[in-house]
């Protein structure tokens, strides 16, 4: 696997750099609806939180663009505003300044915890997402079964969340996110609470599902190996405030494994860069 690494501390505008956009959008609003090829675009997005008298700048002029079908991993140390970023893209929160544009693509969100409704069975959890979209009853049943089959939980639809293992619950949550008919899947450390073996298998599963459904994924993680294993592109955020400090394109050359040397090499470089960034806050 080749590794191309572009320093993108502003104002980077290297030709051929994969779509980082701090350049072309000055003044011109991106057209809403039907922007071909671009699933998510953030333009100079800042987010500040006010707590008492102090104001915390969580994100500082973050610009990024994600192409349709791209798998983008976002890593950074604590306090880099990763979760804030996902909330903004999901529309659960509004930026203090700047624009977030998903051009009417449907956005699904997954958390570190499965956040399933404990009073519903696995299949009712998935079905509710379809119901919320207004899918009529008959096709709903069929689609639910199909979605559970997609995450390989065909026989477990009647189980309640507490009867399933952590990995299985997270797969139900994935089926539920897919049921939202999402074009863009936002994942906030979705496998962070799982053991390494389960996580490894779920990486394969996620990769397969993304390819089958041409999903665009924005995947937040603390785990550099995970980022190197999954991403078409890895974006490194600085901490407090969160800024895009570096971006790595990881072109796909066949199947990657979490323990393959290429992934290790990329992970090592990401770790070094992260340590450097954390060191900045050391005094």
């Amino acid at each position, binding site marked *: 696997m080749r590794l191309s690494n572009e320093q993108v501390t502003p104002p980077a505008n290297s030709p051929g750099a994969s779509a980082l956009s701090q350049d072309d959008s000055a003044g011109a609003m991106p057209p809403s609806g039907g922007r071909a090829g671009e699933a998510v675009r953030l333009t100079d997005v800042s987010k500040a939180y006010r707590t008492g008298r102090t104001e915390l700048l969580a994100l500082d002029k973050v610009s990024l663009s994600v192409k349709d079908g791209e798998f983008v991993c976002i890593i950074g140390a604590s306090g880099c505003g990763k979760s804030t970023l996902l909330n903004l893209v999901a529309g659960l929160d509004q930026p203090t300044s700047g624009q977030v544009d998903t051009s009417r693509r449907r956005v699904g969100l997954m958390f570190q915890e499965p956040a399933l409704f404990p*009073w519903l069975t696995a299949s009712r959890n998935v079905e509710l997402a379809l119901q919320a979209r207004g899918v009529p009853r008959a096709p709903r049943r069929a689609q639910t079964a199909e979605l559970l089959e997609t995450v390989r939980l065909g026989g477990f639809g009647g189980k309640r969340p507490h009867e399933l293992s952590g990995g299985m619950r997270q797969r139900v949550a994935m089926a539920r996110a897919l049921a939202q008919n999402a074009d863009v899947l936002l994942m906030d450390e979705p496998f962070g609470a799982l053991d390494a073996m389960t996580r490894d298998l779920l990486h394969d599963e996620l990769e397969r599902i993304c390819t089958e459904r041409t999903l665009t994924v924005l995947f937040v993680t603390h785990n550099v190996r995970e980022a190197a294993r999954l991403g078409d592109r890895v974006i490194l955020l600085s901490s407090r405030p969160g800024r895009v400090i570096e971006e790595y394109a990881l072109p796909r050359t066949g199947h990657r494994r979490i323990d393959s040397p290429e992934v290790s090499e990329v992970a090592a470089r990401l770790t070094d860069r992260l340590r450097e960034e954390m060191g900045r806050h050391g005094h």
Partner: protein
Amino acid sequence: MVTDQALRGLDNLELRPGQGKAEPGRIARKAWATAWPKVLAIALVLLVWELVTLTGWKKYVLKGPGPVFSDLWQQMQHGALWATIGWTLRSAVTGYVVAMIIGSLVGLLVARIPPLRAAVGSIITGLQTMPSVAWAPFAIILFGENNSAILFVVILGAAPSIANGLINGVDYTPPLLLRAGKTMGLRGLALYRYLILPASLPAYVAGMKQGWAFAWRSLMAAELFIAIIGQVSIGQQLDVDQQNLDFAGASSMIIVILVIGVVVDTVFTKADMSLRRRRGLLDPAAAN
């Protein structure tokens, strides 16, 4: 596919084997395990009671368990006791149902509308701590000595607990679930119907259980206070027994009150437990 196989294997390994396989005799053993401490406790109480009687303390009025239970047995042969219990249960059920309706409506409105909560939220808690017998004279002034007065006291006793249970449930809906629901596109009424209300159910049931306890106490207080001609309720029977210095009769009534209270409470506890079990809120080791 290798991943598929591995994943299915892992799923099977992680699920607890042999869940819920009922073996013969398990139910009987379980029933015995829960029954014997109760039987022992009742036996102990009866023993102490008998011993106190044997000491001759208050010997002109105090009677032992033998005479009391034979009195109760005799009363049970008569229609009068059942009519008495009938009157009381009718008031209890009517009052409780009305309290449920009022408590639920008020609870939902207070939980939804912030100014309303600021206005009456603390009043509801205040009402909960109010001894309901204090309402009895007030109710008599307002309605006269009749059923409405009794129901008034019962409703004021039970409704605040029910309302508070619902408010607590709505307040403590896990924020993560709310986030998940909103991402799914649940809004407004659907958000309440599919997320907030089901999430509040355990707290709501706890409120209903507490509401029942308050309703039952309030009802006894009201019946002692409010005499309705031609209608002998448990409270009124107790009042009559008091005037006749009928220890056995009064004790029988106390036993009846206790038994009804405990039986209804058990129903609520069972509902609560099955709710928790279905949601995985019970420690599986403790549930066995």
